[in-house]
């Protein structure tokens, strides 16, 4: 899946991979790629400004802490971030259900009979 297809969903994906706990930048990128089964061609340079923006908007907070003996900037969800993730999930489910209902031929045929 090309990077352009990811645009608009990056924020929600970043929030989702941080749900289990704090991660540093590269671990976040790896987590997104692993969760997508390697299908996402994420341009990694777009992730850092997005993390910065999410922190500025209060959805994430960050602090420098040692990871493998090296100080790393680790991000975690705030309460607002958890609420934002829940909203993004329900919006996405509603969207996929609506578009799916239109695209799904079998469902359309079932409704017609």
């Amino acid at each position, binding site marked *: 899946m090309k990077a352009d297809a990811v645009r608009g969903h990056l924020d929600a994906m970043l929030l989702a991979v941080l749900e289990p706990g704090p991660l540093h930048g590269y671990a976040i990128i790896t987590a997104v790629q692993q969760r997508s089964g390697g299908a996402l061609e994420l*341009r990694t*340079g777009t992730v850092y*400004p*997005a993390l910065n923006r999410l922190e*500025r*908007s209060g959805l994430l907070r960050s602090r420098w802490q040692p990871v493998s003996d090296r100080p790393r900037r680790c991000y975690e969800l705030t309460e607002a971030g958890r609420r934002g993730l829940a909203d993004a999930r329900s919006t996405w489910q509603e969207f996929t259900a609506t578009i799916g209902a239109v695209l799904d031929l079998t469902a359309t045929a079932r409704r017609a009979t």
Partner: protein
Amino acid sequence: MSAGPHVDPVEDYLATLTASLHGPVRAKAAMMREVRDGLVDAVEAQTCFGVPYAQAAHRAVRDFGPADEIAPSFQRELTIAQTRRTARAAAVTVPVLALCLFLVRAGDPEWRLGALAAHLTVVATAAGLLAVTALVVTGPLTRLLPTPHRLPSAVAWTATAAAVGMAVAAVALGVTSALSADWPLTACAGVLAIAAHGVVAASARDCRECARAGRSPRAR
């Protein structure tokens, strides 16, 4: 990016990206440190499986994205950081200017420069209101509203106007203190106005530079 035979692709990339960004020193340093960590991690993730360093470094840089395509989103964040910094400087110092002018005017209702003080107070009030608005829009409201693209320029030029106002106020207060019997109050106010001018003018200059960098063709 100039990739010579002995140039480390990661260091070359970092140098190119660093040179193209403008913003508050600490924010930029933290951003670049994080980018460096990410690239080093990406290289290590491959070299630990036996991929040669040069090949791993080239791949890490390629996956990160071309510096001229990636830089605008970094610059946008740095420009907003500088805008917030300038807005904070204006929000703290502008009320000082307004208070100085108010005190001098209250102490001498017949002050000849009263009309000038009134105009400067209007400039100070406008700058203060815009500064507070910028802090709210680029902070808690980011989730609800997109940050207007012209906000950094608006803050930069309003802070510049406020800095000019502070310089004019400092001169006016200096002249008044030289002619007034109650000179200690006006002299103190003048010194405060000069100090506030120094802080706001420097921050406004940096903000103008960031706003320009954000508007350059490669930053769009």
